[in-house]
């Protein structure tokens, strides 16, 4: 099967600062991949580089074989990147439904189908984005990315700062998305134990470099590896 996303020898950062060095990995269609690592190792920079809001020094990023480097963020979005930024950045002055329809592109993901994944959004469809709780904002951010009918979802710390009960609700929705709907996704997470069970593969970043790539299930089972790179011990 052809690669959906191929990152090769990527060196990128902000301004003059290089954050990522020699990042190379592949993601197949329908595949979910976890991006793990401690704080400040370049996980968000990786997502931002794919979206096109960082400075690329070297290397290439292709989506379904198309080189993204010369393209603007709008053009990349048009090729099928569905970004869920860390800050969520939903449009606060638009209603929930307007947040979805403002960016919607024709495809399988209709507003009703998104409401099917996140029933809470349907309940609050008429509310302003700014009036939502953190968890609802996160759902809306994911829903908004889905509304663009992307080939690849880029989720940046989707569970950060949310109450445990909301995290559970969100993760079960994600499982549905990835497993049942077969959505390809790159998911940045701090909490390996939450994300590894729902992804197929994982990579670990340290100081801007990939230090481990492999199947999520194997990583989850390898306590020493988790301990070494993430400082996580088995609960």
């Amino acid at each position: 099967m052809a690669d959906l996303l191929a990152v090769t020898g990527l060196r990128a950062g902000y301004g003059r600062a290089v954050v990522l060095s020699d990042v190379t990995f592949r993601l197949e269609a329908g595949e979910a991949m976890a991006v793990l690592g401690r704080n400040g190792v370049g996980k968000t920079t990786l997502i931002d580089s794919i979206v096109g809001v960082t400075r690329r020094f070297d290397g290439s990023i292709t989506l379904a074989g198309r080189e993204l480097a010369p393209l603007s963020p709008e053009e990349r979005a048009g090729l099928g990147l569905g970004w869920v930024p860390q800050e969520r950045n939903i449009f606060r002055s638009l209603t929930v439904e307007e947040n979805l329809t403002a960016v919607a592109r024709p495809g399988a993901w209709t507003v009703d189908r998104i409401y099917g994944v996140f029933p809470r959004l349907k309940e609050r469809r008429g509310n302003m984005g700014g009036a939502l709780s953190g968890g609802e904002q996160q759902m809306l951010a994911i829903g908004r990315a889905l509304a663009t009918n992307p080939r690849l979802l880029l989720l940046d710390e989707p569970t950060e700062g949310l109450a445990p009960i909301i995290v559970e609700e969100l993760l079960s929705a994600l499982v549905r998305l990835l497993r049942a709907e077969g959505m390809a996704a790159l998911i940045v997470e701090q909490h390996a134990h939450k994300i590894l069970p729902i992804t197929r593969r994982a990579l670990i970043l340290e100081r801007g470099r990939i230090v481990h790539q492999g199947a999520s299930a194997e990583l989850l089972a390898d306590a020493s590896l988790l301990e070494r790179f993430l400082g996580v011990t088995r609960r």
Partner: protein
Amino acid sequence: MPSATLLGQALISGVLAGGMYGLLAMGLSLSWGLLRLVNLSHFALAFLSAYIVYELGTKYGVAPWWSAAMVVPVMFGVGAAQYWLFDRFHVNELASLLITFSFAVIVEAGIQIYWTADYRRFETHYSTLSFKVGPFFVPVLELVLCVVASVLAWGTWMWLRKTYVGKGLRAAAEDADIAAAYGVDHRKLAYLLSGIGAAYAGIAGTFIALIATLAPAQIWAWLGVVFAVVIIGRLGNPLGALLAGMLIGASESLAMAVLSPAWAPVVSFSVLIVILLWDPEWL
């Protein structure tokens, strides 16, 4: 205590006069709220349109609606061209104020050179037409203006709410980078909106030609009150601009009828301050 007839009459003429505030405020509010450009030249474009309508009407006998049919598309082009400049030179909110101010001064000077500083009045047989409702007189031209302004305000409001373009504009106004990352081509939409704002100046100008007296310096006469209207009506909200315009018009007029006409200019800013402090839920 003033009579009920006086109060009612003052209210009618105030609300109708407020329609002009609203119409002028609309274009300004759209570009300020959705493009983050404070376009002071909006007033200059409105007066330039008014002068053109006046010129066509008095020199060649062209009816104002035909003049408007010509002027409004031209203004749309001017607005789009203005956006090209703003975009080309990466103009921000504050710089836009200065640049459009200079643009307005240039237009004012141009008007003064061509039409001189003398007062101009486009006399039409319908300019003082009015009809009677009970004890009140309703001026026809102002009523037409209010109807046009209402249709435009409501139409624009719906357009911003219901269409892909409108929602994209609002999303981009809030966060252009994020909107871009979701495929909203902010620039293309901005050209459209800038053109629409200027086209509204053309429509306002047509009515200014028919209702007001023209003098180059009059460009600045509406500035203060229209700014108050834009802010009360909330940036980027055409319906709010119209309603705020009517609110200010009515308040000014009632102040003139009940207190002294000299209070009128104080009213718009007092209403603005009260509303800013009160910050009611429904706004």
